[in-house]
């Protein structure tokens, strides 16, 4: 009886789902690049990282057969994954390998595990950071590490624009915004000290509403991050729809000194004006600058609402010269661009020279959504979420709709 009812229910929903599914998407890439699917159906595959021996570690936002981390290995060396194992009983987004340790985050902690050679000791789990704010909205804790023994953790603000009544159009923002004390920024911790929390960490960057993609750039020796900009600016009818859906810009920021402030919730970056301006919840009209004059400017501005979920500076030598030290950004795709179509289910690339963007951003890998005309994100077949670089310089992309992982390689043949 139980089973029958469940089946009937599943059937009802699968009809709805089938009507929306497009044919299997084809991933498009620049000339010379090719991709192949190395894993399928892992579920909510968020960030991923690749060890020096080629093992792929993927963090899941929903447990798969009781595991929150999946390891994919190619044991017989034929270039295909032939061994899949899971461990870690917590959900989350962040995962990274540094100096013989695997770091992974839940929505309130960061753990690490020790490698013995290329074998991860999953029983060696230590809690490095604990007690971070998790109020569901913007709860994921992405991580990156520098070369000086520091760990960087984003703590997203559980809010849109720090209004007391969150997301109520016309409600003023709280001033000062109390959320900034424990969220809305990136915190720095030590990699080798257990059970650190706010009192042990440094608020390394502030005024960032929510960051999912961040990376330590080893050529500039600085932290870069991609902000998820505020929603609902179009509800204020300050701009025509075609302009409003592009605002605020999804920005890439560079943190050059501890404590750098990027303006949330008081300011947003208007890429058409080329400056940070006041949010309407803080008296702004879309152009006036006020207190935002002191806010640090971004290094790259992308169209609004595309949801950058991963950032990776390419340090390999497999890809052509143009890509070296440049930034790949995985966009999850928008939901807040109505009445226009939703956009941005792709991986973008920004060329860098001497630590600065040296050209306009471009779409690198596209086609994940399976359809150009997406009016609701649920219509997207795949949504890019994580990026990793393999030991051979290939680029890996994860998807958190079905749980695919693609390997993108370059060949002159």
């Amino acid at each position, binding site marked *: 009886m139980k089973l029958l009812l469940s089946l009937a229910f599943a059937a009802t929903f699968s009809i709805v789902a089938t009507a929306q599914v497009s044919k299997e998407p084809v991933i498009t890439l620049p000339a010379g690049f090719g991709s192949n699917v190395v894993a399928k159906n892992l579920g909510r595959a968020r960030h991923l990282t690749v060890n020096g021996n080629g093992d792929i570690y993927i963090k899941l936002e929903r447990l798969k057969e009781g595991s929150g981390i999946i390891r994919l290995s190619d044991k017989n060396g034929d270039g295909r994954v032939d061994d899949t194992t899971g461990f870690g009983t917590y959900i989350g987004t962040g995962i990274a390998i540094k100096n013989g340790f695997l770091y992974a985050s839940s929505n309130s902690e960061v753990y690490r595990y020790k490698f013995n050679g290329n074998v991860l000791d999953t029983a060696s789990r230590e809690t490095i950071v604990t007690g971070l704010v998790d109020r*569901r909205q913007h709860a994921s804790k992405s991580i990156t590490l520098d070369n000086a023994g520091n760990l960087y953790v984003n703590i997203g603000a559980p809010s849109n624009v720090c209004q007391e009544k969150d997301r109520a159009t016309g409600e003023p923002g709280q001033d000062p915004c109390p959320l900034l004390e424990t969220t809305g920024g990136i915190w720095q911790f030590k990699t080798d000290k257990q059970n650190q929390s706010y009192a042990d960490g440094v608020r390394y960057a502030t005024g960032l509403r929510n960051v999912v993609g961040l990376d330590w750039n080893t050529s500039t020796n600085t932290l870069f991050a991609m902000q998820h900009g505020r929603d609902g600016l179009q*509800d204020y009818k300050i701009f025509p729809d075609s302009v409003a859906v592009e605002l605020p810009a999804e920005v890439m920021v560079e943190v050059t000194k501890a404590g750098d402030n990027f303006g949330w919730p008081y300011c947003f970056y208007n890429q058409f004006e080329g400056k940070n301006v006041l949010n309407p919840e803080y008296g702004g009209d879309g152009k006036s600058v006020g207190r935002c004059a002191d806010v640090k400017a971004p290094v790259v501005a992308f169209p609004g609402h595309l949801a950058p979920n991963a950032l990776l500076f390419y340090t390999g030598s497999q890809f052509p010269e143009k890509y070296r030290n440049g930034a790949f950004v995985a966009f999850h795709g928008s939901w807040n661009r109505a009445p226009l179509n939703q956009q941005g289910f792709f991986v973008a690339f920004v060329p860098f020279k001497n630590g600065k963007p040296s050209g306009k951003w471009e779409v690198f890998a596209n086609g994940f959504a399976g359809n150009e005309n997406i009016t609701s994100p*649920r219509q997207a077949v795949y949504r890019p979420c994580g990026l990793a670089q393999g030991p051979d310089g290939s680029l890996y992309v994860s998807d958190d709709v079905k749980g695919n992982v693609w390997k993108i390689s370059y060949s002159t043949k």
Partner: protein
Amino acid sequence: MKAVVFMCLLLPLFGVAQVKKSSKKATTPTGNGLQQSVSKGKVVYAAYCLSCHQADGSGVPNLNPPLVQNNWVLGPKNVLIEQVLNGSRGKVEIDGETFHNTMPPMAHLTDQQIADVITYVRNSFGNKASRVAPAEVKALRAKTK
């Protein structure tokens, strides 16, 4: 846990069954009245609901709940009326998926607008359920004040 999952699966079926039963009663207005409410509700939806719940009512995975054939939409009308009046800060779970964004209260809309938009939602995106009358919104608004 199993029981909870089972209830989640069962509730929508229960909701549909209940709604069908109640819609047979003569308390619902005529087809013309329903159509009028649906078309007025569509305008309200586009202005206040669509940006989060999407043009096709499918919501946003992980963030904003879908309005397609689930018990929140097809079940007891009071649940939906209260949701629109008071908004929501809590976690919403539908079919094993959880949704985490805040919904702001929409109490600034008139009883008529709320009745129309709920009637529109209950009769769109593959849904079929009885209409909501402004008096039902008014009664709940008085209670929650």
